[in-house]
């Protein structure tokens, strides 16, 4: 386990405070007059998502939070529960809709994702940057209809709707950038 000093604090660092994992979301170094340095940090509890302001001095130390990323496969969702499986040991874990967040727009069966764990507690999910999804509903393009620009809305198999170029048809597969939620390209099968 790594031990950090207050002067090691920086944005994105994950530390353990009172047994809970926190991520540093903002950080400023201050040093009034000829006095000791103070490290002001905004930290977010990764279990509760609650943020807090803290002031540390250079004598303060922190343990790194024992976080582990595991590759897992999406199995299914049932109401508020999203179930995943570790493909190495077949262990299953479920996340709440809140924990999954916007990622639910791109979750299809057997999709491989990374899940961040604090010991055995799942904290959140990271999708691959690009996911291929099937278009389940698309209105045919009406020629000359340029009122809404050169795109039209479609619905994907996950229920997510987005705008795509007019040539994308119902039943075709497209690649979507999960970071922006935007259409990338049509996929040939």
């Amino acid at each position: 386990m790594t031990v950090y000093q207050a002067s090691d604090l920086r944005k994105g660092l994950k530390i353990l405070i009172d047994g809970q994992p926190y991520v540093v979301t903002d950080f400023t170094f201050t040093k009034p007059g000829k006095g000791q340095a103070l490290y002001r940090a905004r930290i977010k509890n990764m279990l509760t998502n609650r943020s807090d302001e803290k002031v540390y001095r250079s004598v303060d130390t922190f343990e790194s939070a024992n976080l582990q990323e595991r590759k897992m496969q999406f199995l299914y969702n049932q109401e508020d529960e999203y179930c995943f499986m570790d493909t190495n040991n077949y262990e299953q874990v479920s996340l709440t809709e809140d924990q999954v967040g916007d990622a639910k727009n791109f979750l299809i069966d057997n999709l491989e994702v990374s899940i961040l764990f604090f010991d055995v507690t799942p904290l959140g999910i990271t999708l691959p940057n690009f996911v291929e999804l099937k278009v389940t509903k698309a209105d045919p393009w009406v020629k000359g209809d340029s009122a809404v620009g050169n795109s039209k809305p479609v619905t994907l198999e996950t229920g997510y709707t987005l705008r795509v170029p007019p040539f994308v048809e119902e039943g075709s597969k497209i690649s979507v950038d999960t970071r922006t939620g935007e259409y990338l390209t049509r996929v040939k099968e």
Partner: protein
Amino acid sequence: MRARIIQSIRRFFVEQGFLEVETPNLVPSPVPEAHIDLIGTPRGFLHASPEVCMKRILSAGFPKIFQICKCYREGERGHLHLPEFTLLEWYRSGADYGDLMADCEALICFVAGELGLGKTIQYRGKEIDLKAPWGRISVDGAFSAWSPVTLKEALETGRFEEMIVLHIEPRLNNSAPVFLYDYPAPLASLARLKQGNPDVGERFELYMGGLELANAFSELTDPAEQESRFKKENDIREKRGKKPYPIPSKFLEALRTMPPSAGIAFGVDRFVMLLTGAEKIDDVVAFTPEEL
């Protein structure tokens, strides 16, 4: 803009009859300070302030001197800190910290005037009125007014800086610059104690637009007392697991002939920030350490 500000600072001091001096940046024994870490080299330290050499020049009989130079402090990096930064220092013999407050008012008004900014400047959405006299509040007064713990308690529990940063500095972001003066004696290692109140040293910090801009003292001129205070600073260092620094003995020697004087260190980079509306110190230097 930075160049014009620095040229203007120089002009102010030359017109006031100050002598510009140059002293070495590389020195064998700078002032030992509890909370300032030096950058060491195989041939000595990079100074954290030119005060040791400048006070030796004062002792040698030059009554009004100034210098603009680079100074170095290990581990200081933030939106107001660079490990290598530019400091302006000036010293006046036969003067005390009150005279330096007047100097600050005159200097800043002069530079703002030369830049065509007039008597009010805008800094980050706030108007700062430069008309003298500026606000003055003692450390004791500021703690009574704004700190949730008393000054005594803050000193005993090592929370002085925390109270300053969280509760006092935000109140000093006024529509006019403010002098925070009379620091507790243990926090004014190089300052003369106040006559009639030996609990405080004649030290002030100038705040402008919420930025700490300058630190000044009525200088201590008693070599024995100064040596014992240096030892105390080193003791604090050792208690905090840091290396003590060598005692600057030639400086202590020079104090014997130093006239009563006052001296001040003024952050040039932060002054440029104030006059240009910069949010970060990074915005007023050509290169930050990360860009090298």
